[in-house]
């Protein structure tokens, strides 16, 4: 088993040997998984979409949700994985702070989650499971061999304990994301 940790702005495409982890606040991860080929991809983006005009000079940047999805799909295509057989999950988009009086801005986390849904819909990829919004951080682990997505949501206060042990506590089940109460 090869463990991969994604920092904000990273994405990863890999096969059944890999387990991909990350820690999310207002950021969102999309996972893509092809059940028959046992190949998957995962992103960790910070903002919904680039406001820059599309064009040859525009840099594709995994920190944006639209670019991260493009990068994952291109990586899967290079690996010979058709998007038509993939299903997706969306995780994250938490509120990290109490709403600010006087702010009429859509929270970054909500904006990211809504954008992820729209991007996947536009790409024609079904969403098998989502765990979005609410308060605080989430630990996410995506096991590509099984397609399992495990999420543990951490209350915003006190601050998350980085040494907190597994197991995760998934909240919603929807195939093909098999849920378990423990990694052991």
């Amino acid at each position, binding site marked *: 088993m090869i463990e991969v940790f994604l920092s904000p702005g990273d994405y990863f495409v890999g096969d059944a040997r890999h387990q991909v982890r990350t820690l999310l606040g207002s950021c969102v991860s999309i996972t893509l998984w092809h059940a028959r080929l046992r190949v998957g991809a995962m992103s960790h983006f910070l903002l919904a979409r680039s406001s820059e005009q599309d064009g040859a000079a525009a840099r594709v940047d995994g*920190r944006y949700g639209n670019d991260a999805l493009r990068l994952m799909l291109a990586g899967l295509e290079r690996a010979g994985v058709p998007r038509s057989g993939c299903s997706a999950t969306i995780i994250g988009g938490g509120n990290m*702070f109490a709403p600010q009086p006087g702010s009429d*801005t859509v929270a970054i986390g909500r904006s990211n989650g809504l954008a992820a849904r729209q991007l996947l819909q536009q790409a024609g990829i079904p969403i098998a499971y989502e765990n979005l919004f609410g308060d605080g951080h989430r630990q996410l682990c995506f096991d590509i061999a099984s397609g399992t997505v495990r999420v543990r949501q951490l209350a915003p206060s006190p601050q998350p304990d980085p040494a907190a042990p597994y197991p995760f506590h998934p909240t919603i089940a929807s195939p093909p994301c098999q849920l378990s109460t423990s990694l052991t």
Partner: protein
Amino acid sequence: MPALHLPDLNVLLVDDDSFMLEFVTSLLRERGIRTITTASDGNKGIAAYDRARAKPNLVLCDLHMPGQDGFQLMEELARRHYSGGVILISGQEDRTLRSAKLMAQFHQLNILGALPKPVTGEALMGALAGFKAAQAAHAE
């Protein structure tokens, strides 16, 4: 001087990374801050400062930028006797941030924090809490 509330802040944000400009602006707007001016390097940042009728009371600046970098921007701010808060941002190692912080203190700038990239909302709000505390202390 009355204590400021976050929405009252007038922010100058200087970074050559367009993503960072957009991301930090989103974080600030989420906290209700409306008056945000952005610039993509130190030259444009100091020009924006000079142009502004109401001077910023918070400057967030990246250290490494083409043209005039964050170190030079701090010198220019000190030359203008800027008395507001400064938050430094850098993708470089901690040592660079520490050096910049020392330099800013040498220029008697009010350094609120030195944040590594990628900037998180928590880190930014922690630095802003320091600003509010300093304002409150100043008001007493």
